[in-house]
């Protein structure tokens, strides 16, 4: 039961962080070249999707590593997200 509560809490936290990632883009950027309109939007969308994918990979890797009692599993995504190394 304790493990289920942990999974639920972990998934909720992940969802909140994903949402936070999706909306955290309001600071002005400075460029002297035109960053484009559609091309910039395409890049922003791609960055957010890639960021979420990297983040979720780290979370999933953490879940798996948590379920194992052995030492943490080293994956590139854990390297990418230090939080993934906490277990």
């Amino acid at each position: 039961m304790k493990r289920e509560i942990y999974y639920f809490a972990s998934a909720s936290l992940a969802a909140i962080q994903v949402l936070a990632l999706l909306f955290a883009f309001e600071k002005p950027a400075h460029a002297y070249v035109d960053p484009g309109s559609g091309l910039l939007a395409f890049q922003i969308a791609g960055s957010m999707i890639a960021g979420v994918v990297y983040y979720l990979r780290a979370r999933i890797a953490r879940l798996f590593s948590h379920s194992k009692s052995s030492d943490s599993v080293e994956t590139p995504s854990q390297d990418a997200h230090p939080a993934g190394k906490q277990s």
Partner: protein
Amino acid sequence: MSKEQPALRNTFRDPAGTLRIEQNRILRTVTPDFSGFALEFLRHPQTVQWMAERRMVPTTVLDANPDSTLLEHERILYPSYPWEWTPGQWVAAAALTLDLAEESLEQGLTLKDATPLNVLFDGPRPIFVDVLSFEPRQLDSPIWLAYGQFVRTFLLPLAAWKYLGWPLGASILRRDGYEPEELARHLGLLKRWSGPLRSLVALPALLGGKNPQTSVKPGKSATSYQVHQSPEIAKMVLKGRLRKLRRLLNALAPSAQHSRWSDYPELAAHYSSSDHIQKQNFVKQSLERICPGQVLDLGANTGNYSRIAAAAGAHVVAWDTDIEAAERNWRQALAEKLPIDVMIADVARPTPAVGWRYGESSSLLSRAIGKFDCILVLGILHHMLLAEQVPLSEIAEHLAELTRAWIVIEWVPQHDPRFQDLLRGRDKLYSHLTEESFCEVFSRFFTVDSSEQLANGRKLFLMKRR
């Protein structure tokens, strides 16, 4: 003539500094706000390595004072512009830009602009010349602000050339390349959503809206949106983006094609193998005797004579109008590391100066006049006379302007099958074009040093300017 050439003006777009040419020296002034970083960047081991590898133009600091920082770049012998490059050269310049962007990522840097105009060709190899294009990267941002410019100025012209047949030479009219929406209008729905066009055209056009100029919210420019991620994720996203751009570039790279002229040396039926050998020997012996430092090969085709000149120790600039022939010349020069600058250029219709007040990119002729010790005019004179309809006296005068000393020129007689092909029934109009009239007109500007008659009736001359 040289008095009429407009001078290149100081560059003005980049707030970090300005470039000028002063008595054949390439000088760059750095503005005080950017001086500290620029000097640090130039001292960085990676930058030093790039310069040693000649991937970045060697640069020396003349004045390190923050208020008057002055740099001097090594002069590239014969600068060419993207509208004069073959498709392979476009891909090589884009690949170099991506290489440097990727390598600089690890150092916490980014390219703030990414246009073909940052690259020149040093022989057949691309060299990055804008040392102020680098700036510190915002470590928590996965956005590459020059991404749009890279796509507009490198990938979309290549895509337009590959899928729509739009010439890369049209880039002379487009300083900032194409917008995805411009290509989208000319591509069918299925085409637009397949292959590299999906990421380059269809999706950006969809996200940009019908009118990209007004698709952002009122009061908010497109640049006011930015994503923030952890530095590790941001770096991985940027690396992934550069890898994706490289895959798109590879998908747009040219495949071998055949054109009217690319197989010409192999199929030249009007030339027997003994005539070929005799012609090559005459050119080789002439060049070995006069030892020119710089040679211009007019109508270079796939570069047989460019390579002979390079073997004789010359730095060669090879002009041809045929893209596939020039591409082959460039590829061979690259593979064999020969000092040959290959350009798509037409002596009869030379590239004009372009840009603000004609001062941003210089014309083909202002870069050429008086720069060469020898001009090779092999198998092209009859094209200039009959196809381009330029009078003999004009050609002789212009060649005397272009060369500092020598020309090696091939006279093609009236009965030659190639002369007859181009004559097309205009026999009477061009009946005055005889070897005698050729020698008479050219003797006003040149003296004949040596000559050789070929069995097919053509004649080779080595001439010296009077």
